[in-house]
């Protein structure tokens, strides 16, 4: 179909992949030289990431270009292709990856687990594999890269492999990654439509009949959903993210989850084409359930990285719900609306990459300086770590979806898309949409709750442990990386029209419609349909707030005075205040626990009034774990035992099996 010639950007992307692999190999050659690895190799990787981002940025509007690589099996070469969709995700990979690599310069110091050189190899192989997933143009290369991505990230998650829980978390991650990979493999099997041609071009031109397109979509939703963390395959996220070193968590949450979104978009809109309306309803409901589930669980977490992992589940849910909406509109031929939904999805993908990387890296700095991940042992770090605290505040506000930062813009666009649904022909869908909008808004409002908890408990208040007084601020590289991501959050939030123009080629490619008003519209005001219907200008809002604040400060100080006296906190005159009287993480989540009690599986230990040494503990578990995973694991165990009896461990028995098999084959094939 597209016999376009390979272009310079495509070569540049392939060059970046090769360079990352080369850096990794050099790291492998010098496994224990921490200084060389961290001061030379990681900055180099970061520079390549930045270069990749620039190339992808420039290639966003270009026509697709393809290339057949002289690699792979004989007669089965690798196909690669760079089109707006892959360029956009490469942009995310490059720009977030650059910051995370830079942060890693100062992060990987001690070498209790995996050697630094090996980490460097795995890390860069992970980056290269993600880039390869994004440019793959046949199922073969895609699966090879996908599995490389899963394996390298598995080894990165288990960096501290001496700790049993971390090994367990890594195993769970690997297991679900493979369950998902089976789904993707089957999906490609359906997509090739009996032609045996596994290149994506072949899949585009293959015609599927009857229920096969739906089967392919559902398999893709399952397979990519497992990687993205959709319900009920989300359980690995809250285990793997806390286990991994923080830059790896940032990379996994900020970028790797997005490759799953990329795959879903690629299959649904590009390889399958013509989506059906009920796919949209499935994705929409699944996405919203995931979002609500994720945010409710995030509110009751006591480990800061688990909290962020659940918040990632929420964001993925919102993104998938947006994809569902885009599918719905696209199936009904509403070009403009589906373009708005699609833009909202892509925008949120970009935003989440920035703010979630920022927050994960900030937890990395906190972890580094306090060696503490539990919220109950942190507090008051804004005094000790002002850089991290102020930059994390930007990420927190962005993640809470507040204007004028970036998280708000994508949610705003998505809500706009929701509000214009009543023009759909199916009344059942029309009825569904208000409920869906309500669920989305509820998730967004809860996200603010979660983020206040996250920020307030870690950075504000009094330090909950004495050793927090020794906490130190982040180093130079970490500061630069965090500032870069925070600046990204602000810029993406304040210049939405520029970002939307950037995303426009992708939306035109996927849904064949543009959400940029003819003539470009005003650069200042975001108005996807018309200014009479909806408009939002974060720049003006930001400026207005800043101006009002400055004027108020000036007037108040001028007209009255600016005198300040420092005194001990008042607290209604209560004299004995200790840091233990603040809300703990459990305390802050208590209202959510009470309101959404049926969601949780709680194990509580309440002391009796006559207890002399009272102990209170509450453990919150995921119902899915007990209702779905443990029974499946038990069944697998039982099945294995049943099969186990044929394994006698004696060679004569196995030889007999072979003999019987041969006889049977002879009888059948005869």
């Amino acid at each position, binding site marked *: 179909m597209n016999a376009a010639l390979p272009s310079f950007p495509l070569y540049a992307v392939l060059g970046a992949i090769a360079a990352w692999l080369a850096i990794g190999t050099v790291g492998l050659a010098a496994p224990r030289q921490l200084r060389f690895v961290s001061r030379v190799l990681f900055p180099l990787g970061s520079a390549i990431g930045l270069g990749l981002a620039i190339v992808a940025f420039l290639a966003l509007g270009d026509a697709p270009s393809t290339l057949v690589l002289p690699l792979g099996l004989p007669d089965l070469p690798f196909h690669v292709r760079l089109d707006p969709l892959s360029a956009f995700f490469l942009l995310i990979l490059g720009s977030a990856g650059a910051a995370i690599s830079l942060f890693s310069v100062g992060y990987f110091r001690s070498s209790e687990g995996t050697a630094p050189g090996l980490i460097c190899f795995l890390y860069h192989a992970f980056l290269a594999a993600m880039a390869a997933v994004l440019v793959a143009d046949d199922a073969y290369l895609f699966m090879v890269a996908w599995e490389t991505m899963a394996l390298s990230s598995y080894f990165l998650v288990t960096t501290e492999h001496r700790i049993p829980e971390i090994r367990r978390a890594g195993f769970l991650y690997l297991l679900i990654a493979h369950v998902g990979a089976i789904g993707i493999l089957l999906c490609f099997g359906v997509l090739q439509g009996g032609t045996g041609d596994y290149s994506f071009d072949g899949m585009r031109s293959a015609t599927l009949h009857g229920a096969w397109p739906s089967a392919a979509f559902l398999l893709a939703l399952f397979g990519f959903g497992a990687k993205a963390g959709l319900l009920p395959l989300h359980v690995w996220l809250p285990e793997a993210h806390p286990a991994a070193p923080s830059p790896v968590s940032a990379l996994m949450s900020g970028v790797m989850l997005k490759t799953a979104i990329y795959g879903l978009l690629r299959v649904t809109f590009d390889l399958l084409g013509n989506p059906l309306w009920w796919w949209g309803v499935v994705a929409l409901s699944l996405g919203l359930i995931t979002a609500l589930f994720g945010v409710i669980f995030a509110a009751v977490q006591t480990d800061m990285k688990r909290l962020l992992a659940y918040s990632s589940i929420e964001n993925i849910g919102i993104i998938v719900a947006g994809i569902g909406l885009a599918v719905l509109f696209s199936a009904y031929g509403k070009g403009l609306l589906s373009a708005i939904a699609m833009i909202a999805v892509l925008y949120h993908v970009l935003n989440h990459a920035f703010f979630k990387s920022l927050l994960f890296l900030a937890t990395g700095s906190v972890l580094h300086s306090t060696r503490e991940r539990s919220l109950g042992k942190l507090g008051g770090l804004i005094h000790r770590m002002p850089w991290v605290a102020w930059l994390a505040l930007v990420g927190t506000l962005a993640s809470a979806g507040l*204007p004028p930062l970036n998280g708000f813009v994508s949610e705003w666009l998505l*809500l706009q898309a929701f509000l214009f649904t009543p023009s759909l022909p199916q009344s059942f869908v029309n009825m569904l949409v*208000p409920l869906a909008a309500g669920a989305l*808004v509820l998730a967004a*409002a809860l996200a603010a709750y979660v983020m206040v908890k996250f920020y307030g408990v870690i950075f504000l208040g*009094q330090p909950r442990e004495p050793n927090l007084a020794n906490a130190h601020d982040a180093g130079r590289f970490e500061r630069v990386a965090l500032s870069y991501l925070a600046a990204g959050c602000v810029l993406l939030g304040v210049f939405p029209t520029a970002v939307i123009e950037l995303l426009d080629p992708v939306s035109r490619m996927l849904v064949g419609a543009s959400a940029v008003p003819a003539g470009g519209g005003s650069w200042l005001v975001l108005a996807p349909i018309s200014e009479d219907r*909806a*408009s939002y200008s974060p720049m003006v809002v930001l400026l207005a707030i800043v101006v009002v604040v400055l004027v108020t400060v000036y007037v108040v100080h001028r007209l009255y005075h600016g005198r300040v006296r420092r005194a001990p906190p008042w607290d209604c005159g209560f004299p004995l205040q200790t840091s233990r009287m603040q809300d703990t993480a459990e305390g802050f989540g*208590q209202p959510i626990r009470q309101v959404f009690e049926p969601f949780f599986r709680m194990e509580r230990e309440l002391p009796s009034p006559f207890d002399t040494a009272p102990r209170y503990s509450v453990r919150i578990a995921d119902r899915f774990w007990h209702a779905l995973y443990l029974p499946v694991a038990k069944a697998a165990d039982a099945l294995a035992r049943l099969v186990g009896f044929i394994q006698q461990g004696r060679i004569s028995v196995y030889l007999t099996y072979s003999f019987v098999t041969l006889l049977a084959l002879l009888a059948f094939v005869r």
Partner: protein
Amino acid sequence: MTLAGLLSQVLQVALALALAPLLVGWINQCRAWLQNRSAPSMFLPYRTIRKLFMKDAVVAENASPIFRTMPYVVFGAMCCAAAIVPSLATDLPFARAADAIALVGLFALARVFISLAAMDIGTSFGSLGARREMFIGFLAEPALLMVLFTASLISGSTSLPTIVETLAHREFAIYPSLALAGVAFAMVSLAENARIPVDNPATHLELTMIHEAMVLEYSARHLALIEWASALKLFNYSCIGLAIFMPVGIAEGSTNWLAIMAAVPILVAKLMVGGFALALIETLSAKMRIFRAPEFLGTAFLLAVLAMLVNLLLGS
């Protein structure tokens, strides 16, 4: 953006700033009448704010800069909101910068800041208040948005000026969807503005306070700004309600001076009625336990969703 438009914009914000404390004073006055007490002066809130501005600020020793910036940010957000809500005229230049959803976002911004500042000192009441405020907020925000969505569906727009113009030009009748949305909006406003039955603005009883618990540590000019911002918030909510459910009298276009001049007394009259209604509700109801609030706000949310469904089903 014309000079005249800008002028009417400034007029609207200035009027909001000036009238907001008076609205609080009026509500207190009505409450006192209804409860058979002798009322303080209606102008007491102005005097309180002035007195607070003159005092020396006392700030806790371990307060971070967030604590000191919060009052200004919240005040700024409320001023922006006052510029967006069409209280006097519909076609103001600033209204294009933020629609109904962004307005709710601005309120959320203020709420998050005030909660963060409450947790900043690390006192028991501060974090308790922050937790409760976010708790009420996450329930109230969806309900408020659903109310605004109902109005948006009717007018096919989330832009407040368009909503108000569409609603003002409809035939005068009782629309079931708007009636349901109106009830939901009233419930949300009570919760969001820390009024009875969800919170009590007059209490410092430890176990029941929400908003007051968060601002316990504030004094002097910081407290003055917070009080003023709360008054502005109440004013803004009242004006949103009046604009959607009683859009009569709001001037259309930003340069129609005659209409704008006429809009001022109409607004004052409507606010007086609204304030009296609020005082009546506060007199007739008792404060709820905090864990009854989800039921209260859940009802509001369901009513708002119902309003939306009614609108979709019946088209009215």
